[in-house]
């Protein structure tokens, strides 16, 4: 008998300790819990306002979430490695404007999207190089690049503005069109999301992101190329922020120097609400995407229920605090349960 592939069985056959299984279940519950909150919210809104889940309503809901889902997906990769990228809002803004100027001058739509992604990759590379080679705190560096990119954007854009009238019709139609109630843009986001989740779960380098997030020193000693992985995570995050910029342009058709201003806090909120922990090493992109969906839906739910939009911001903040507080309390409970169980078995 010839061995054609390394046998993965030993790893799979090791029985999972009951503790690991419990922790696993809790993290699955985490995503289910967000989904549940989301569904309850939607049902209540639908009861209060029967127009809410019309074809257009669903479409708006998905369109609103799309851009945040994309950026949050990239951000969660960075947060999983125990870093953070605060410059995503600026990256989104500058890529959206770059794509817009190119299109206004009669450029090709596909090339415009590629241009936005490339610009995002450039920004991500700068962040990644500073964090991984400079070994400096990610929060400070990306706060710096937030300013730098926004500043360059503002100097370049000035008081100019890109409007839908100057863009090709096909591009704008693509931004608002879709298959029944599912917009094209949401499909793009979904494909990116599923691909990223698959990569994180089934590729060695994806698992290594978790490893180096939960213990950088141990990861280094285990031979994981820490700097390379962090650089890759930042580059990917930048690329998605760039792509989100192009989609922003397609969706709104309106870009100026303030586009994406302050977006980083929304993105980080979505990621944290979705259960990706700041201390690194845990969480999933599906969670982050659900967090993004939940946060953006609040914005549509409140007006549909006749609540003034001034409440949106406060509710977003309280949601974020609730999410991390509940997380923490559940984690403490699990820790106590594990301790008890170990005491019983030991």
């Amino acid at each position, binding site marked *: 008998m010839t061995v054609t592939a390394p046998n993965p069985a030993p790893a799979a056959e090791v029985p999972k300790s009951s503790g690991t299984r419990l922790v696993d279940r809790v993290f699955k519950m985490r995503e289910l819990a967000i989904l549940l909150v989301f569904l309850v919210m939607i049902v209540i809104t639908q009861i209060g306002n029967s127009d809410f889940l019309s074809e257009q309503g669903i479409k708006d809901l998905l369109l609103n979430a799309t851009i945040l889902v994309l950026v949050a997906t990239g951000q969660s990769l960075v947060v999983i490695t125990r870093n953070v990228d605060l410059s995503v809002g600026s990256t989104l803004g500058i890529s959206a404007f770059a794509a817009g100027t190119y299109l206004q001058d009669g450029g090709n739509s596909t090339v415009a999207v590629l241009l936005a992604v490339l610009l995002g990759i450039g920004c991500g590379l700068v962040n990644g190089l*500073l964090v991984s080679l*400079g*070994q*400096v*705190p990610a*929060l*400070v*560096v990306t*706060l*710096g*690049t*937030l*300013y*730098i*990119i*926004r*500043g*360059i954007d*503002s*100097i370049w854009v000035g008081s100019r503005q890109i409007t839908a009238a100057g863009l090709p019709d096909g591009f704008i139609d693509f931004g608002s069109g879709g298959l029944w109630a599912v917009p094209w843009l949401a499909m793009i986001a979904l494909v990116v999301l599923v691909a990223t989740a698959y990569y994180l779960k089934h590729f060695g380098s994806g698992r290594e992101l978790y490893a180096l997030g939960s213990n950088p020193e141990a990861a280094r000693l285990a031979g994981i190329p820490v700097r390379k992985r962090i650089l890759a995570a930042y580059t990917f995050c930048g690329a998605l922020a760039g792509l989100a910029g192009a989609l922003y342009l397609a969706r709104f058709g309106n870009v100026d*120097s303030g586009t994406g201003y*302050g977006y980083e*806090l929304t993105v*980080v*909120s979505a990621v*944290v609400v979705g259960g990706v922990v*700041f*201390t690194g090493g845990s969480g999933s992109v599906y969670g982050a995407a659900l967090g993004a969906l939940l946060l953006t839906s609040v914005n549509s739910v409140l007006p549909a229920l006749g609540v003034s939009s*001034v*409440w*949106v*911001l*406060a*509710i*977003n*903040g*309280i949601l*974020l*605090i609730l999410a*991390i*507080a509940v997380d*923490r*309390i559940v984690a403490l409970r699990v820790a106590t349960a594990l301790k008890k169980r170990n005491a019983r078995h030991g």
Partner: protein
Amino acid sequence: MADSALVRAVRWSALKRWDSAVGALLIVVLLLSFTTVDGFGNALNLSFLIGNTLPIALIALPMTLLVVSGEIDLSVASTAGLSGAVMGALWNQGMTIETIIPICLLLGVVCGLINGLLVTRLGLPSLAVTIGTLAAYRGIAQIVLGSDAVTDFPSQYLDFASGRLGDTFIPYAFFPFLVLLAIAVVALHATPFGRSLFAVGASEEAARFSGVRVKRQKLILFTMTGLMASLTGVFWALHYASARFDNATGLELSVVAAVLLGGIDFDGGKGTLGGAIAGVFLLGALQNVMSLQDVSAQSQIVVTGVLLVLSVLGPRVARQVSIARAGRRAAQSSTG
């Protein structure tokens, strides 16, 4: 001869300390501006410079203590906005300003207490908590005041907040700031409380085992930060004679940028208030000079960002260089 080498080494290490470097840079910038920039040296401009920098400086005081102890508060600008909004709303209700200001300060204490309790009692990361309260407090400010702007505060208060002492360059509000600065310097650098903050920032576990009441100290710090943020909010509304819910939006990033530029290590356990204040006024002076030179506001943002990146890269590179030099010296002495 050994003595002079020692002196030289000490001097070199003092220069290498980032906070003294920032202080020196501030002096250089000020001297250059006085001699080369038109309109910088006159008293009115200097009073503008100080007055516009005061909100950042006021919040930087407690923020320095917080960052030294390894925590951060991003909700400060929202707390300031909230206290300004409440001030405007209560003023519209017809309350007197003498009762409103204490209420606003109390509100700041409550805001800080909420942050502190979430961080210390539940053990949540302060970064995540205060991003949450950043949105929550600003949202409440919006609920309280809507899109109104309240401008008709009593003139003696407006004059105090925006006026200056005679024809000098010193705004009235600078004196209360000096008092607060003195209190903060003494608290951080000359009391057991302050020393223990460095211990907490360097290693929370070790500090706890050596008898520091870590949670209580952090709770005090968050509460003080809330108080100072609301004081800044009141000052902001009076200084610019306008109370709106979006007052001081984004100020948290300027404060964090200035404090980090001043050499306060984001990982905690290192830094001096002198460095932080030098960082604050360095950014303020640069912005003022650039405005005078007709540098656009956008380019000023780039300069802030570059300075911030340099402020973390600089010390790191300096350390690498000194380690490399020490290694070379060791190699020389072993061969020689």
